[in-house]
């Protein structure tokens, strides 16, 4: 029997508002414990929540980018459960009327397009962080995280493989970064992905029993965890066992999932409408305002790069992977660089430098204008492409303009024919054997002469001129 995996993803995204979702506290990650707190996020008696409008704006933008319906009228609810990381012992969330619903996200896996349905995206508050490392049997709670603005994005069970899950997460993250609504930093917990995984005999409509895998620190880890989990479930079923509904963690070192929490009788969260907050009413004007502020999204930008700049689908894909890379590329082109050459330089030379440094393009010292100037110097014959590769390394290190570097290092291309003629004659005079060989028809030694000339001019000789003059001299 062949099995098929059925996977749904739940992603919690910390929205990068400057303030928490229901109070004015700061949201920075590295503050000392319990310093970004106030009576509201600490759940002190008498304190009341007020919904952060920026959070709603950004959540609507995500909803629109995921092709969701934006609810004209939604509300906040209280989700009741007791845990020390929950200041009020209820979490303000959205239950039956989420802000965004019924969307879809297109992904591509091995050249094949798939659509993942987005069930909903709803606003909620993050919980505090418990620590059990204080010693003496004491536990600590850091409330800095309590009340951070979270958007929970839930998919339909449309995903069929670990690879698809990876593609979904990558596409989602790309959109979130394009919208600039989240740092999407999994290590700092600003993006947390959970996968609901079940398998069923292929062709069957009913779902199998699912397990939930959480607390995975990376997308590739999530992919591996899902792969493992599918294989594990298949093995259990093939051996005649049953899948238990449970939450499983991921042991990245051993590469296995493990039981974290058996599902006791389903938790009764006693949801009810949050009476301290008024309904979230998003009229057409509001939605339109957000729509107008939306940046061009990855898919649209990819297509435009192909048509506007004549790039291959692959190049357009690579250059639009991040908004900052695409912005950089367009700035280079705008500074009057050839679009295709700019694409190559950004994707190959610049990317290699950045990767070597694990640096982000936002922090790159080479301005788009300087990169364009470098390309123009190649085109204009001021330097060779080979020299340019050295120049760009210096530009990357110093941030200096290419002309400055070329001048400082004396790298200006030699295009003076008399200088090149002198060099050519000198080489020919010093290599009588090779000249004889050439004249005897062994034209391969032409390359030897070019190499010698370039060596003598420290690579600065204009290659085209070298070719011309050398040929002329040899034919004499």
């Amino acid at each position: 029997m062949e099995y098929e995996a059925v996977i749904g993803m739940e992603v919690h995204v910390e929205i990068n508002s400057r303030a928490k979702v229901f109070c004015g506290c700061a949201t920075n990650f590295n503050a000392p414990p319990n310093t970004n707190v106030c009576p509201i996020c600490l759940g002190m008696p008498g304190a009341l929540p007020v919904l952060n409008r920026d959070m709603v704006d950004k959540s609507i933008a995500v909803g629109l980018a995921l092709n969701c319906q934006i609810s004209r009228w939604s509300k906040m609810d209280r989700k009741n459960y007791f845990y020390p990381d929950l200041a009020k012992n209820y979490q303000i969330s959205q239950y039956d009327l989420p802000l965004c619903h019924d969307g879809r996200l297109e992904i591509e896996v091995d050249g094949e397009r798939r659509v993942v349905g987005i069930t909903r995206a709803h606003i909620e508050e993050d919980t505090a962080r418990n620590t059990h490392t204080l010693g003496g049997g004491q536990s600590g709670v850091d409330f800095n995280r309590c009340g951070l603005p979270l958007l929970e994005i839930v998919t339909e069970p449309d995903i069929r493989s670990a690879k698809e899950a990876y593609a979904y997460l990558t596409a989602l993250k790309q959109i979130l970064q394009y919208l600039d609504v989240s740092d999407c930093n999994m290590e700092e917990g600003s993006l947390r992905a959970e996968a609901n995984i079940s398998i069923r005999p292929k062709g069957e409509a009913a779902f199998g029993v699912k397990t939930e895998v959480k607390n995975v620190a990376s997308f590739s880890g999530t992919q591996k965890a899902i792969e493992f989990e599918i294989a594990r479930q298949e093995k259990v079923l093939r051996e005649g066992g049953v899948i238990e509904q449970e939450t499983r963690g991921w042991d990245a070192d051993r590469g296995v999932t493990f039981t974290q929490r058996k599902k006791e009788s389903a938790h009764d969260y006693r949801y009810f409408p949050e009476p301290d907050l008024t309904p979230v009413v998003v009229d057409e004007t509001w939605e339109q305002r957000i729509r107008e502020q939306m940046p061009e999204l990855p898919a649209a930008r990819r297509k435009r790069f192909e048509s506007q700049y004549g790039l291959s689908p692959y190049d357009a894909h690579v250059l639009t992977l991040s908004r900052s890379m695409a912005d950089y590329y367009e700035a280079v082109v705008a500074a009057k660089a050839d679009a295709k050459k700019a694409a190559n330089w950004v994707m190959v030379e610049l990317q290699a430098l950045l990767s070597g440094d694990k640096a982000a393009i936002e922090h790159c010292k080479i301005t788009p204008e300087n990169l364009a100037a470098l390309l123009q110097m190649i085109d204009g014959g001021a330097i060779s492409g080979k020299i340019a590769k050295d120049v760009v390394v210096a530009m990357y290190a110093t941030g200096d303009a290419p002309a400055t570097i070329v001048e400082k290092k004396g790298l200006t291309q030699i295009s003076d024919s008399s200088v090149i003629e002198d060099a050519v004659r000198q080489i020919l005079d010093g290599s009588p054997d090779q000249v004889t060989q050439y004249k005897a028809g062994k034209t391969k030694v032409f390359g030897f002469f070019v190499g010698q000339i370039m060596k003598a001019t420290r690579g600065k000789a204009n290659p085209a001129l070298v070719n011309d003059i050398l040929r002329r001299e040899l034919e004499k």
Partner: protein
Amino acid sequence: MTDAWHWKSAREIRDAVSAGAVSATQVVSDHLARIDDVDGRVDAFTQVWRDMALEMAGAVDAKIARGETPGPLAGVPVALKELFCTREGKTSCASKMLENFESPYDATVVKKLAAADAVFLGKVNMDEFAMGSSTENSAIKTTKNPWNLNCVPGGSSGGSAAAVAAGECPISLGSDTGGSIRQPACLCGCVGIKPTYGRVSRFGLVAFASSLDQIGPLTRTVEDAALTLDVICGKDPMDATSADLPATDFVGGLTGDISGLRVGLPREYFTEALNAEMREKVERAIDVYRANGAEIVDISLPCSDYAIAVYYIICTAEASANLARFDGVRYGFRHPDAKTMQEMYVLSKSAGFGPEVQRRIMLGTYVLSSGYYDAYYLKAQKARALIKKDFDAAFEKCDVIAGPTSPTPSFAFGAKSDDPLEMYLSDIYTISVNLATLPGMSLPCGLTDAGLPAGLQLIARPFDEATLLNAAHFYEKNRGFDMGRPPIA
């Protein structure tokens, strides 16, 4: 001195202090002496902030000495119910759970009163977490009714009502979830107003039932109630449910003119459930309107019978979540014997909350539970909408609704405390007003043969406190008798 300052109205005190006729310090000292004199018998105050009161009074006097314009409550002594968050003193909610709790911030109403140059005398008693109708559920002390020390002051703002009635302060701040301002005001012979839901910011009011709670003053005159409301109402960016409306001038709206006023009498409020003496007092009060040209209209509020059931589902549901935070983790009572997290929760809550609070938390948890939600909570919300509709229809025919505040006058300690359902009936006429988010107030309208106050309740359209206060003020000026002072005087 013809009369002590402690029997003066807030308006009289404010005017005298502002004019320099008396110092705020003298007024406050007089009130502190009054507290010393009578509170040992009334037991309204849970904390007296002697030093702070004199300090605040001194600041008002200094301000006036500097020639600055004093605030609208200059030098007026105010007592706060135990559930208003204050940086000064404790904010105990009359509960063992919070007996040593100090709030890190001041409630918005507290800030507004201070900004108006009022002076805080301290805090007054209440039913634990505002749950009760007699203040017998306080974990701190037993407050007596100044009209009869063997009787309850009503609740949950019993300390607020008793303090005002006993001349310990001209204004006290209470909160009203189902009648907790109006019923004790009625039982103690005070004026008490519950404004429209959203009129006054709830920020810093320890929540009982968030969709019903509203803050209001208890006073001895309608004008003082208007004066206080003008100070405390208004949109607060810290309370999403507070209404953004133009500034009020309720004091200026007390015109003494009720021409064209239509007074509706709900037939459901005048049945056998209403004590005969209370009924007689209320009807005589309505005669004052009739005799002065108001149109008296017969109206019906057919869903009234469901009010108590609806209320005890909604308020307990909200309370079960609101009180969940009192868990011993961050503040408040943590049971010393707790060894595990589970024990911390169970032992702390079992020992920290009194029986009525525990009863309501359990009721509320039950009505929200899966499988019961639709039958109880959802149905109650639908019934709540119908109750509101009743009032909407009634206000097509009248401008204010008049009736009793409480079905009975004050009762002896212990008379109802063993029977929660009997106690719940104390709020039979007040609860609907909260469910319908309307403004309502109670006015003293005479004494029973036993010398206990009766109260007239007036109810108006949402945010029409102006009509409500003007009608109340008219009655107060034309009722033709003086309530006198309780025998404690």
